[in-house]
């Protein structure tokens, strides 16, 4: 036990670095999820068949993008995206480069969640917005988002946790992060105890995020009280 504590002390620098790397990858991808995934999912909800602003071609396009990104196995997706990544951020290696494919996945995942969350809102809410003379922007910001906010928070929580999982394999493009640390030190150097400690760290992190998300979503939800 003492020996483990001593080795953890030795790796302290690497552990801190890897946590920062994971944080950066999560930060970029979740930012993309909010800035791109939220409008994209909203667009899918509006444009879908029977939606408030039905546009078949738009829905097909967005839906196709989401399906393609979500169905390609992630490791292959990372590799296949390398030319784009190099074009977008100037390099295909390192934490910033790793954030590119992660962002694609976060956008696609969150867009789908947003669409499904908005579908749950009673159709009457759209009718109300129409009867009050709201335009599409107002329909979304004044009616749909306020009513869906607890669901939007919960789905963002789920996406965050998925992104932690996806980020653990970003070592393949030098993305680093906690998962990469666990594999390099724990698995490849046969220091299994280090690996288990790291896994425990990730589990704790996930539990904290889930608890926070659930509490926040409950605080925002007045539908049943």
């Amino acid at each position, binding site marked *: 036990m003492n020996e483990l504590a001593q080795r953890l002390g030795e790796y302290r620098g690497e552990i801190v670095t890897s946590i920062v790397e994971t944080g950066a990858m999560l930060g970029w991808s979740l930012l993309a999820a909010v800035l791109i995934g939220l409008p994209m999912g909203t667009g899918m909800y509006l444009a879908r068949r029977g939606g408030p602003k039905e546009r078949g071609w738009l829905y097909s396009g967005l839906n196709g993008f989401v399906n393609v990104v979500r169905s390609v196995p992630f490791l292959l997706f990372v590799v296949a995206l390398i030319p784009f990544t190099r074009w977008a951020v100037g390099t295909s290696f390192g934490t910033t480069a790793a954030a590119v494919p992660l962002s694609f996945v976060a956008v696609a995942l969150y867009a789908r969640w947003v669409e499904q969350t908005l579908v749950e809102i009673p159709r009457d809410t759209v*009718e109300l917005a*129409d009867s*009050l003379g709201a335009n599409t922007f107002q329909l979304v*910001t004044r009616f749909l988002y306020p*009513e869906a906010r607890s669901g939007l928070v919960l789905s963002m929580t789920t996406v965050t946790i998925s992104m932690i999982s996806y980020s653990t394999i970003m070592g393949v493009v030098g993305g680093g992060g906690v998962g990469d640390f666990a594999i390099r030190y724990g698995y490849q150097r046969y220091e299994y105890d280090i690996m288990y400690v790291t896994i425990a760290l990730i589990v704790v992190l996930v539990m904290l995020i889930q608890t926070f998300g659930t509490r926040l979503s409950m605080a925002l939800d*007045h539908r049943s*009280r």
Partner: protein
Amino acid sequence: MIEFDQVTKSYTQPGARRAGSVHALHEVSLSVGESEIFGVVGESGSGKSTLLRMVNALELPSSGAVTVNGVNLAALRPRDRRAQRRRIGMVFQQFNLLANKTVLANVALPLNLHQRLGGLAERGLGPRRRPGAEAASADRAREMLDFVNMGAQASKHPAQLSGGEKQRVAIARALVNEPDILLCDEPTSSLDSQHTDEVMATLLRVRAEMGTSILLVSHELDVIRGACDRAAILESGRLTGIAEIARLQARESFDSYSERARKYLEGDQE
């Protein structure tokens, strides 16, 4: 005030082999006067909700024209149509209050929609609104809540209210823009009789004190008889008659539940 001129609404039946269509309304003509409470009765599927939704152009006629104060909403550009809709209040069977907003915020909502890009300004992201606009709309919303006797519940959320209270809040919301016309789509159909009386008494006060024209759709004949001056009777989309409702009853006040129960149980149904 509201004119229906030979209005027909037909839907193409989904999945129909031939290009056959179903008439929701068939050549309906009627007019509703200023400060009139006009009922529309009929069984479900008779087209009465379709008729109501044509007044604010939530549904557009297939032929014929609906005009409100001489304006044909169906012929307007979407933007102008939205502006016209803000002058027509609407009350729904299921109240349609936003669950995550307080009672006060629900009532103030139509006022805040007038401010363009209000949503961004509220979050400090866009141009600031007129100073005091928010406070003014809150004051106006409070005034309307007092009118429907819901002033004390302003900070509650809809889930904490009874059905009748929710519908009164919805009426306050519909009136907050001072519309000339109030459209009511089965406003009491999901309420028990006591709450129905509360809501109907409120609607009668709306007409008496604000002079608002009210178009009231309901399948409940008691409700129509107790509140309306005239009522259109619809059957399968056709107007079969307009009833002049006898002025014998005290229409300006609904009997309380216990009063009605006593009359009914003692056989006095006058």
